[in-house]
């Protein structure tokens, strides 16, 4: 029973202890402690996922609103992603954080964010979800402003305000849902009372839209995406990896929970909300890619790429049929691993060379071949070239889009996805090309191999392999997904 609490509470407590602990731990001890905590948390999370079959009510916040945990397939999917990315990025940061200050604080908040994310995945009703959603913002925002420079603080503030505003927009909806739902427990197919839905239909559509916008902030959806490209470059590389791979996925998880488990897909399908949502998602896809294409700074370019790729997922959710939904979930995984790898490679590059702009990185492939090979492989995956993970997910998304009953977007959607894929190639591959083929005037004499230490390369390699594996054996995942996806649609 209480097993479900352990992966949530243990890292949070460990993080608090680290933060409160007064003594200056030696770097080695700190690393070992944090590493152990991370591994234990991962193990606990996996145990909880496999063992816990029961629901668990911790306590009642108000009479009708319990803090309640429940594990379903979506939880398993997101939780696995969280554990893998957090472990990889955590080990990466043991090497990376050497050149940053205040490591203890970083690890403390890192562990807390880990625990909160686990809680977010396990949350069984909307109010618990909201609770952890807010906590996630608060525990991840110290990671953004970690460096303490003026830009970092401003970026952190921007992140905080965008997130809080978004959360309040959704809270607005929760207030009403409390009244008009029998329960806020996540139930496939929605819990909105039929009477309320038929009586104040348009009002609840508006609420749904508010909540989409509100939670969409976290997922970087169009009108409120601006925090993403400022927050990512400001954070240390492993933090941006988790931010981009997992934390923004909290927004996606939120939308899945709200639309499919609270309102119910049938309620939204075919209304102006779906249309607007589709339009916003597509605008974001295209705009993110364009902005990434024009961006010279590597990490910022990757951040814009995140904006664009996340909206692939949102597009899939907005289409609301089985294929698209499966595609979305697959893309959650694929993008998680790919973007994690990309940010980690960017971190490795910054760590070894200190260069941040794409133009400066000529010949980087000769210097750090292993890292750059990983970069290239996952880039191909993100573009959607078979047999990587990105291909499968985009395939499903496109199929779903074409099959969906969504008017003009039926054709517009896949077209924009295609254009955006081309743009993705346009902004990711130049680094590979210049890195491996620096041109004739490159001075090969000064070139030296400076592959980063194994603590950095192994996580990168691991995640690369995972992203390829998803592409090679998608059926394993798709089969498990199909069953419950059909219950949602």
């Amino acid at each position, binding site marked *: 029973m209480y097993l479900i609490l352990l992966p949530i509470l243990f890292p949070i407590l460990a993080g608090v202890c680290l933060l409160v602990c007064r003594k200056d731990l030696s770097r080695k001890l700190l690393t070992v402690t944090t590493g152990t905590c991370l591994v234990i948390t991962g193990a606990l999370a996996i145990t909880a996922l496999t063992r816990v079959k029961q629901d668990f009510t911790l306590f009642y916040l108000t009479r009708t609103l319990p803090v309640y945990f429940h594990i379903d397939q979506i939880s398993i999917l997101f939780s696995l992603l969280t554990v893998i990315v957090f472990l990889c990025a955590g080990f990466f940061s043991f090497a990376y954080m050497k050149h940053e200050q205040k490591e203890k604080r970083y690890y403390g908040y890192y562990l807390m964010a880990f625990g909160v994310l686990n809680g977010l995945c396990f949350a069984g009703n909307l109010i618990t979800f909201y609770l952890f959603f807010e906590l996630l913002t608060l525990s991840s925002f110290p990671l953004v402003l970690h460096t303490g420079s003026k830009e970092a603080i401003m970026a952190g503030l921007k992140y905080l305000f965008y997130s809080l505003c978004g959360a309040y927009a959704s*809270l607005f909806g929760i*207030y009403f849902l409390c009244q008009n739902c029998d329960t806020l427990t996540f139930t496939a197919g929605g819990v909105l009372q039929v009477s309320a839905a038929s009586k104040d239909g348009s009002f609840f559509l508006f609420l749904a839209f508010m909540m989409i916008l509100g939670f969409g902030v976290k997922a970087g959806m169009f009108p409120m995406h601006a925090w993403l490209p400022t927050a990512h470059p400001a954070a240390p590389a492993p933090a941006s990896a988790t931010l981009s791979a997992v934390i923004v996925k909290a927004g996606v998880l939120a939308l899945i929970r709200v639309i499919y488990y609270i309102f119910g897909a049938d309620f939204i399908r075919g209304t102006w909300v779906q249309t607007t949502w589709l339009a916003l998602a597509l605008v974001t896809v295209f705009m993110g890619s364009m902005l990434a294409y024009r961006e010279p700074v590597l990490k910022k370019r990757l951040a814009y790429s995140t904006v664009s790729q996340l909206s692939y997922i949102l597009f899939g959710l907005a289409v609301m049929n089985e294929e698209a939904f499966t595609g979305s979930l697959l893309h959650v995984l694929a993008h998680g691993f790919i973007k994690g790898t990309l940010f980690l490679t960017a971190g490795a590059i910054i760590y070894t060379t200190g260069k941040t702009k794409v133009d400066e990185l000529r010949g980087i492939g000769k210097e750090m071949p292993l890292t750059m090979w990983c970069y290239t492989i996952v880039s191909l995956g993100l573009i959607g070239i078979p047999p990587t993970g990105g291909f499968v997910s985009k395939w499903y998304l496109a199929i779903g889009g074409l099959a969906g009953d969504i008017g003009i977007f039926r054709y517009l959607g896949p077209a924009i996805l295609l254009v955006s894929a081309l743009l993705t190639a346009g902004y990711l591959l130049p680094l590979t090309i210049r890195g491996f083929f620096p041109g004739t005037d490159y001075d090969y004499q000064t070139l030296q191999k400076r592959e980063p230490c194994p603590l950095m390369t192994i996580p990168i390699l691991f995640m690369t392999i995972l992203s390829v594996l998803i592409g090679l054996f998608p059926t394993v995942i798709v089969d498990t997904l199909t069953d419950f996806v059909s219950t949602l649609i």
Partner: protein
Amino acid sequence: MDFVCNFPFFSILLSLFSGTICSILPGRAAKVVNRIVIAAVGVMSGILLVYLLGTGESFVYWMGHFPAPWGNEIRAGVLEAGMALFFCIIMYLSMAGGAHKLFDEVEESKHNLYYILINLLLSSLLALVYTNDMFTAYVFVEINTISACGLIMIRQVGRTIEAAVRYMIMSLLGSGLLLFGLCIMYDLTGHLLMSNIKESVSVLIQTGEYQIPLIVSVALMCVGLCIKSALFPFHAWLPDAYGYSTVSSAAILSSLVSKGYIFLLIKIIYRVIGFDIFNNTRIIDVLFVFGLMGMIFGSLSAIKENDIRRMIAFSSVAQIGYIYMGFGMGTQAGMVASIFHILSHAATKSLLFIAAIGLTEVSGGSRKFIDLTGAGYRNKWAGVAFTAGSLSMVGVPLFSGFISKLLFAQAAVQVEGKMLAALIVLGISTVLNAIYFMKTVIRIYAVTGDTSYPCITFKDMKVHAVVLVLFVIVNILLGVSSQPVVNMIEQGLAMFA
């Protein structure tokens, strides 16, 4: 009658009498007496609360040898006992948290006077909570006002004295209106005891006699108490009074004194006029509108403020607005939300004041934001506590502020006409809250190169740190286990009727 039933009377008389005793004691002994009295009253209220929860019925207590319409009475129910207990906790913590500052800001020979004021303030708060008689309420409102004024100006700088004058002027306007309303009400009903007035009022309403004077008298009493509790357009005295007085005073004033008046208003609404009759007047709409305005304008002024204490003070204006908005909804749920917010705001605001003093101490005594940069590192306990308080104010789950906002929203959803306005303003005000509190939190945790200010560790501030931790615990308790509290409030309101 059980012996426990004497406890409300004991607590009022004990605190009243301790005020007299303190007048002949030196400062240090007065402090001890004061602490013991607050603790004793707290314990008695706690026992009384348990007793009342057990019996499930309120009781009246004769103050003298004569029964209801002739003698004075006090009355205790679950809500009253709970409020008294809560007031004692907050007051004890505020006193303990600000005690070390008292030596810097108040002349030592006047310390015992300070404790006299605190004792009398406690007794007047208790009397306001327990009383069943309108005129007694008026007399103790005056004690409350005067001792609050004393608390403001005991730190004798120009600002506080000016603030005290402004406070007195506004308060006297309020008392005048309250007394006039009271007199008219007396003229119409011939009674001064709340229960008897209520009977007469319901008779008057049924017969349709004296409708206009009745409404006017209710309105006068409401306006009087609104002025006294610093509802939005009458808040001009508040920032200076809370911002410059010594820190215990500020914490007590913002979290208890204004709440005492508000609680009296609740009693008037329920016990004198009757909830339904009150809701049928236009007065609740006026309260609603001013509450909403207070929520927005208070926050806006707080954003513009450059001084941490004044910022917290302005935030009080906004929070009082919340409470009146809850009244204005005119439903039981709104009332419950307001009462919960009274508790939540009291716990949070005093926490913020006490934490703010810890931050200013490590910034050379300056309360300007520019000097507070990085203060959270220099005084870790205060920094963490301030952050916790801010999060509660902003309405982050797990803290008390979230629950009160949730309750307000749930209440608002049930009211047809006022739903949208309430929710929108709630949203705006929350975002504004977030802006200025988060701004402050970032500021105190920003890294600064300036190392001229000293750092403070736990050793230097044991009591202060413990108080801060206790405040945070109270806050989280209210946020996590709100259900028993809400049940208690509902039970108490049911006993009012």
